[in-house]
């Protein structure tokens, strides 16, 4: 069963995806820090409502690409559009919700207050699609921790608050920078299931940066494979696993095939 507003990305419909409204559009994106070339000519269209992972070796420029899409970094060349507007303007209008690698919760704010942090600042830009953070916290199982402070939570719980903080914005694009990297294996698996539940059926576009092949395959509609620095997209692999994704998706034989495909693309890109 496919969640409303979503459909699997398959080689057969690649052509139609390209003609649909792109939530993120990168044309000839380049980025250099002084003499260091980080991103070399990336062209990319991400369809609204899809979950796209970007995977690549350490230091290849994945996070820089994400920061450019989030309007936090200026590209050296090329064009970046988020929901039809330049990334910097999208940032001003709160059209991008970031989930950083470390939860970045403010230790002096309660769980409830942390979850509404992004709504509290630049509040005049809050759109009509904002969500009630308390409701979301209850949905992720933190209803009884509303008044707790971050130091009273486990790493997984903190990351759930960070996720709620981003989702509460109701932004059309969710930009996630290895949000599960610091978690243990069991918590990662739980968070993966939770992420799938939260984004499926919400018509939110997700750009997910990760190091983990299995995570990328389990969550995504497409996996983009980056070369070592300077980043180029060397493979664009559709993930045609059905949705909603079951928690034991990684037991599926096709899941293994897809992971192998991504791994080969990574190795080939590194050559």
């Amino acid at each position, binding site marked *: 069963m496919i969640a409303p507003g979503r459909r699997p990305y398959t080689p057969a419909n690649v052509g139609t995806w390209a003609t649909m409204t792109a939530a993120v559009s990168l044309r000839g994106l380049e980025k250099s820090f002084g003499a260091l070339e980080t991103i070399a000519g990336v062209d990319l269209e991400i369809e609204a409502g899809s979950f796209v992972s970007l995977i690549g070796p350490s230091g290849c420029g994945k996070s820089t690409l994400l920061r450019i899409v989030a309007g936090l970094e200026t590209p050296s060349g090329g064009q970046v559009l988020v929901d039809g507007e330049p990334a910097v303007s999208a940032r001003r209008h709160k059209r991008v919700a*970031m989930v950083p690698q470390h939860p970045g919760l*403010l230790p002096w704010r309660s769980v409830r207050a942390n979850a509404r942090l992004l709504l509290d600042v630049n509040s005049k830009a809050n759109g009509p699609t904002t969500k009630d953070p308390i409701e979301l916290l209850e949905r992720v199982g933190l209803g009884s921790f509303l008044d707790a402070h971050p130091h009273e939570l486990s790493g997984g719980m903190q990351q759930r608050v960070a996720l709620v903080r981003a989702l509460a914005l109701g932004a059309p694009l969710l930009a996630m920078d290895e949000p599960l990297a610091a978690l243990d294996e069991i918590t990662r698996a739980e968070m993966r299931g939770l992420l799938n539940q939260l984004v499926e059926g919400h018509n939110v576009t997700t750009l997910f940066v990760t190091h983990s092949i299995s995570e990328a395959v389990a969550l995504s509609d497409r996996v983009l494979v980056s070369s070592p620095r300077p980043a180029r997209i060397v493979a664009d692999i559709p993930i045609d696993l059905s949705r909603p994704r079951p928690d034991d998706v990684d037991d599926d034989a096709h899941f293994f095939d897809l992971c192998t495909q991504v791994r080969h693309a990574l190795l080939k890109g590194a050559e």
Partner: protein
Amino acid sequence: MSRATRYVAPVVGLVVFFAAWELLVRALDIRPFVLTRPSQIVRYMFRFPHDYFRAALITMKHAALGFAIAVVVALVIGAAMAASRFIEYATQPVLTLIAVTPFAAYIASVKIGLGVFSDKPVVFIVALVSLPAFAFAAADGMRGADPSSRELLASVDASRWEVLWHLRMPSALPALFTAAKYNVGLALVVAYLAEGGTGGLGQIGSRAIAGNQGDRLWAAILSMAILGTISLILLNVLQRAVMGWHVSQRSDDG
């Protein structure tokens, strides 16, 4: 360590200290002006309890007002220093100059300038002397705000004021409280030395010196010690109330 031990041990320490002081003065027959016996100081204080209480309140007012002004000014200067390297480099030498210049040297000039019998020069000097530690603490604390939280706020285009209010100021609290604990004693010393003609324990102390009254002088000194202790306790209570989230404020019993 049990809770009882934590409260009993300091009391034992103080009792031993005062007993040793009492015995030393008696054994060596030290002149009261040089060192008065604790029992004699307490007896003198209880002869004039209202005078000392009133004077202590005046000294407390001078120190607290100067302290509060220093914190407010330091937050403004600290925020500017954290926001601009130019302002930081321009401000650093001025703050250092204030910190290293002995305040006792310019007390008379400030008092003549602002009014010998007025509270203003006392409060002004307390604020001035407390300012450098607060300003450096505020700047360091604000600049040390978590970079990933800064980026998170930038990702929704938070204004400078919002970043200051939601992130930088709370981040500066631990450093500000450390500076406050250092400054509280300093503020009381400055108030004591700058008083004279304004009431306060400093006035009692200076008159006792002029009149060669050892017990009166030492009663003022003990009052200052009590005032300093109360101030530190209040500061700790305030710190626990506003910084309960910080690792330094969590119980170590577990």
